[in-house]
C-alpha cells in the first residue's frame, strides 16, 4: 500500500539551500548592514555625548530617575526569553517542527541579551566605574552589595549570557563542521577551530544529544530566574505600583509573551529572506500561534489580577499612581491593552489567522509594541507619582534616549545580519535529523508526510 519515497533533495542540495546565506554577500546585504551600522553609530554618538556631558541629556529627572534605558533593558531581557525558552522547551518536548527555527531563536537570545546587557551600562551615571560591581578582592576590602537586586541582576544576566551562548554554540557544532568542510583557506582554519574537531562519529552524536538535552533543561530555570530577578529590581522597592508579589511571574510571562512574539516575527522574516518556506510552513505558524494565544491569555490574566487588586484595595497612593497612569498615559495604556489582549486573543483563536503570514507578522509586532509600552507603564508612572505628592512629576524621553533605543534595535539587527552571514542560520543537522525521521507516503493520489518519534 505505502511506498517509502526517497527524499526529493539530496543532502548536498539541502545543505546548499540552508547555507545559502553564507554565500558571498549580496548588495542588499551590504546596504542593510551599512544602514544598521549607521544607526548604531548614531546611537554610539548619542551615548558618547551622554558620557561627556552627563545623564542630563536624557529625559530622566527627579522623581523619574529611571527611564528609557531601564525600559529597554526589561524589554530586551524579555525578548531574550524567546529563543532559549522556546528552543529548550521544544527540544525537551520533542516538537519536531522546532528544527528549522532553533538556531534563529537561540541566536536571537544571545543577541537580545547582549543588547539588554548594554542598557544598565548606558544607564549608569558613571559608566566608567562599572568595575565597582565586580566582586574582586581589593585592599580596601570593598565588595559589592549582595543585598541589592541590581547585583543579583548582574549575576543573572551574566549567567544567562554565558548559558545561552553555550547553548547556541553547542547546537552549532555539527553545523560548523559542515561549514568547515565547504570552506577553503583561512575560513577553513577558523571554522575548524570553531568546530572543535567535530567528526560526526556515533559517540560524538550521543554525547551531543545528551549535552543538548541537559543544556535545555538547565537553561529554563536560568531564564525564569533572570526575569524574576529583573522584576525584583522593581518589586523589592517601596515604590507604590512596584512593590507587588505578582511581579516575578508576571514578568516571566510577559517576557515569554514578547519573546515568542519576537520569534514569530523573526521566523517570518527569515523565511522570507532566505527562502525557507519549505522548512517553515504554515503548520509551524499555527503551532506558534497557539502558544502565543496561551501566553497572551496568561499575561492578560496576570494584568487583570494586578489591576483588580489595586482597584479593590484602593490604597490612596497606589490609586493615585493608577489614576495618573490613566490621565497622563491613557493612550499608551490603550495601546498596551489593545496590542496584548484585545487584538491578540480573539484573532489567534482563528486557524486562518494563525496560518497567515501577514496576519501573524502584524500580531507579533503589535504584541511587542504593546509589551514595550507595558514596560514604559511599569517603570514610569509609579516613579512619577511616588509617596511624596509635592515631588510628583512626569517623564518623556529625549532624542538621546530615542537614538540609543533605535541603535539597540539596529544593533540587534546588525548582529543578526552578521551572524546569518558567517554562521549557519538554520540548524542543518537538526533539519537532517528531522528529515531522517520523516517519510513520505503515497496515499491514493496524495503524498503525506509521517514522522517517527525520536526515541
Amino acid at each position, binding site marked *: 500500500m505505502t511506498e517509502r519515497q526517497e527524499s526529493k533533495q539530496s543532502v548536498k542540495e539541502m545543505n546548499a539551500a540552508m547555507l545559502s546565506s553564507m554565500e558571498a554577500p549580496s548588495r542588499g546585504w551590504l546596504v542593510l548592514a551599512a544602514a544598521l551600522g549607521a544607526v548604531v553609530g548614531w546611537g554610539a554618538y548619542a551615548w558618547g555625548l551622554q558620557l561627556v*556631558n*552627563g*545623564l*542630563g541629556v536624557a*529625559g*530622566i*529627572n*527627579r*522623581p*523619574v*530617575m*529611571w527611564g528609557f534605558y531601564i525600559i529597554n533593558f526589561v524589554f530586551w531581557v524579555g525578548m531574550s526569553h524567546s529563543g532559549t525558552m522556546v528552543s529548550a522547551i521544544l527540544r525537551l518536548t520533542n516538537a519536531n517542527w522546532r528544527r528549522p527555527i532553533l538556531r534563529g531563536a537561540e541566536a536571537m537570545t544571545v543577541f537580545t541579551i547582549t543588547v539588554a546587557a548594554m542598557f*544598565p551600562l548606558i*544607564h*549608569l*551615571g*558613571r559608566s566608567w*566605574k*562599572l568595575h*565597582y*560591581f565586580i566582586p574582586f578582592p581589593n585592599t580596601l576590602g*570593598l*565588595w*559589592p*552589595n549582595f*543585598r*541589592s*537586586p*541590581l*547585583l543579583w541582576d*548582574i549575576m543573572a544576566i551574566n549567567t544567562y549570557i554565558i548559558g545561552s551562548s553555550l547553548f547556541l554554540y553547542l547546537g552549532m557544532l555539527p553545523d560548523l563542521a559542515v561549514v568547515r568542510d565547504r570552506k577553503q583557506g583561512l575560513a577553513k582554519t577558523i571554522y575548524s577551530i570553531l568546530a572543535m574537531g567535530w567528526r560526526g562519529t556515533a559517540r560524538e552524536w550521543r554525547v551531543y544529544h545528551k549535552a543538548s538535552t541537559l543544556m535545555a533543561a538547565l537553561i529554563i530555570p536560568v531564564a525564569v530566574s533572570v526575569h524574576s530577578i529583573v522584576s525584583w*529590581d522593581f518589586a*523589592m*522597592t*517601596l*515604590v507604590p505600583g512596584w512593590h507587588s508579589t505578582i511581579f516575578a511571574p508576571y514578568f516571566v510571562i510577559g517576557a515569554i509573551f514578547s519573546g515568542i512574539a519576537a520569534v514569530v516575527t523573526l521566523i517570518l522574516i527569515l523565511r522570507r529572506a532566505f527562502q525557507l518556506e519549505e522548512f517553515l510552513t504554515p503548520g509551524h505558524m499555527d503551532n506558534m500561534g497557539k502558544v502565543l494565544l496561551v501566553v497572551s491569555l496568561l499575561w492578560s490574566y496576570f494584568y487583570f489580577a494586578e489591576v483588580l487588586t489595586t482597584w479593590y484595595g484602593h490604597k490612596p497612593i497606589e490609586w493615585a499612581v493608577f489614576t495618573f497612569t490613566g490621565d497622563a498615559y491613557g493612550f499608551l495604556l490603550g495601546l498596551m491593552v489593545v496590542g496584548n489582549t484585545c487584538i491578540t486573543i480573539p484573532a489567534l483563536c482563528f486557524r486562518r489567522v494563525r496560518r497567515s503570514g501577514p496576519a501573524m507578522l502584524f500580531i507579533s509586532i503589535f504584541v511587542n509594541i504593546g509589551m514595550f509600552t507595558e514596560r514604559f507603564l511599569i517603570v514610569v508612572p509609579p*516613579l512619577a507619582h*511616588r*509617596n*511624596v*505628592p*509635592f*515631588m510628583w*512629576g512626569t517623564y518623556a524621553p529625549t532624542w538621546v534616549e530615542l537614538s540609543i533605543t533605535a541603535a539597540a534595535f539596529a544593533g540587534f539587527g546588525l548582529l543578526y545580519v552578521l551572524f546569518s552571514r558567517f554562521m549557519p542560520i538554520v540548524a542543518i543537522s537538526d533539519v537532517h535529523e528531522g528529515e531522517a525521521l520523516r517519510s513520505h507516503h503515497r496515499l491514493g493520489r496524495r503524498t503525506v508526510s509521517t514522522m517517527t518519534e525520536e526515541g
Partner: protein
Amino acid sequence: MNQAESDNAAYHWGMVIDLDRCTGCGACVVACQAENNVPTVGETLCSQGREMQWIRIERYWEGQYPEVRARFIPLLCQHCDNAPCEPVCPVYASYHTSEGLNGQVYNRCVGTRYCANNCPFSARVFNFFEPEWPEPLNNQLSPDLTVRSKGVMEKCTFCIQRIRRGKEDAKLEGRPVRDEDIVPACAQTCAPGAIVFGNMADPESRAFRLARSKRRFRLLEDLGTEPSVIYLKGGGREDD
C-alpha cells in the same frame, strides 16, 4: 549595623522639626546650599526637575477658598534607621553609619539611581550634569567637603562636616559632645527655631525631649523606615 548595635552607640543623630514654628521662609534651603556646596542649576534644569537642593519646603494646599489652608513641611533626608536606599545600592555607596546617619560615599557611587527610586521621601538628588560655579562664585565653595561630580547621587548629610568638627573639638578639649554643640546649617539659620538637631541616644538632649511631644509624628511612618527626623504637628486653634 543592626538595631541593637546602634542602640548601644553613644550617638544617634536625629532632628525634630516643629511645624508649628516653621514659617516656610526657605532660609534653610539657602543655608544648606551655602554650607554644602550645593550648586544652582538654572531655570532650564529646574524645569526638568533637576534641582540640587538638599532640603526643600513643601507647601500643601488644603480646602477651598475661603476656607483654605497652606501647610509647610521642610523635607530633607530622613536618615531612616531602616533606610530603603541602603540595601538597594549595589556598591555600598549608600550605607548606614554607627551613629544612625545615612551615609553617601560619593567616590563609590556609580549612579544607578536605585536609591533615589527607593527613597519614599524623594530626598535624593542626582548630578545630571557637572555642577558649575562661574568664576569667581567658586570662591564660596566650602573646603570642608567635596564638590560632587556628574553622575553621582547626593543628599542631606545632617551636615556631617559639622558633626565631625563638633566631635573633634570636644575631643581636643577632653569632654563629651554637649547638647546643641553641633548644629546643622538649616537649624542654625532657622529664624523661628523650628529645627532642633541633637543626639537621640542622650535622654537629656533637647531634641530627645522635644521628640517625646504629643504632637510628634514621622513621615510615612507606615512604611517602617524608622526616620530619624521627627515632626511636631502644626497648631491651629483648638476651637476651630
